[in-house]
């Protein structure tokens, strides 16, 4: 596989050092990396799961509004950030691979590199009380 753009390499390295759960995705939403704090939320280590295709994510991590209302894929915070190429924020509930349901605040920030290259997004999660 071709080398990732430098900006993505740097984002991954930053994420690996932070205590905040972080996902790193490419431009179409494929999950190319998540850090150790995010492994707790997702219920599986990145070492074991590896990169995850965007198509598989809705089935793997069932997301709803906080009140349980189903959310369309395009309503998800990450989807909004990728489609608008602007920061997006929201609250939702999702079940990780361990089956545990968690309520989280989600912030997705698009990653635009030098030369206006749109590269992907960085997503942070903040668990909130039920």
């Amino acid at each position: 596989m071709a080398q990732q753009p430098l900006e993505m390499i740097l984002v991954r390295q930053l994420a690996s050092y932070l205590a905040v759960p972080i996902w790193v995705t490419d431009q179409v939403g494929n999950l190319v990396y998540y850090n150790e704090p995010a492994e707790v939320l997702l219920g599986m280590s990145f070492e074991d799961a590896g990169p995850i295709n965007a198509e598989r994510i809705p089935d793997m991590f069932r997301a709803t509004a906080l009140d349980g209302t189903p959310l369309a894929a395009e309503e998800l915070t990450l989807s909004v950030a990728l489609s608008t190429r602007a920061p997006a924020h929201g609250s939702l509930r999702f079940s990780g691979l361990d089956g545990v349901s968690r309520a989280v605040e989600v912030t997705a920030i698009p990653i635009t590199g030098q030369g206006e290259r749109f590269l992907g997004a960085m997503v942070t999660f903040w668990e909130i009380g039920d």
Partner: protein
Amino acid sequence: MEITDSGRRLILDAGTGIRKLGLTGDEERFDILLTHLHMDHIQGLPFFAPLLRPDREVHIWGPISTASSLRARLGRYLSPPLFPVRIRELSNVYFHDVPPSVVEIGPFLVRADLIMHPGATLGYRVSSNGASIAYLPDHEPALADGSLPDDPEWISGFDLIDEATVLVHDSQYDDAEYRDRVGWGHSSSSHLASLAEMANVHKLVPFHHDPGHDDGVLDEMAAGLAAATTAEVVPGQEGAVIEV
């Protein structure tokens, strides 16, 4: 450093050595590829004689920036009080802001990509006649990790270096020195050896020697590199000519 083929020349970076280089040859067009704008890579530029000859065309290629053009950034140096000639007086100089990209310059196919070093920094891969030279003089591929990632997908500069005929690469520190200089933007010998092995480089030219290292230290570092990699190690030194 210069790369020549079929009578055409590419000049890489513009340290103090470019002054002498500018006194050689009589071509009408010069192409200077800057990896980045740290002073040690541009300080010779105002003293490059063709710059001041209206009958010569000088093309300067350098990393794109979100903040300002290459011309504007170099203008901070090429202007009073740092230099008496203003950049706007150099009508024969053309500036090219380079994003990660591929461009043809004469017989050369030049690939540029951002690499790990403070500030916007490019590495270059120059190909011609089936051979390739990768030039990454300032590079810290193992930033903060202590070792290179196992997966080349996540190694800065790997696509530029992969299977290169010649790799000219940062070799500023030995391993002990690097431990106290993480994040400074330069490579240790062992990281360079690992990188060269992973990329299956044919010839390795350790470069950008630390000014505090004497010839004895450089010889020792070169010997260590030669023992740690299957590539042929040819330490970079002023005036050396490497046929490819």
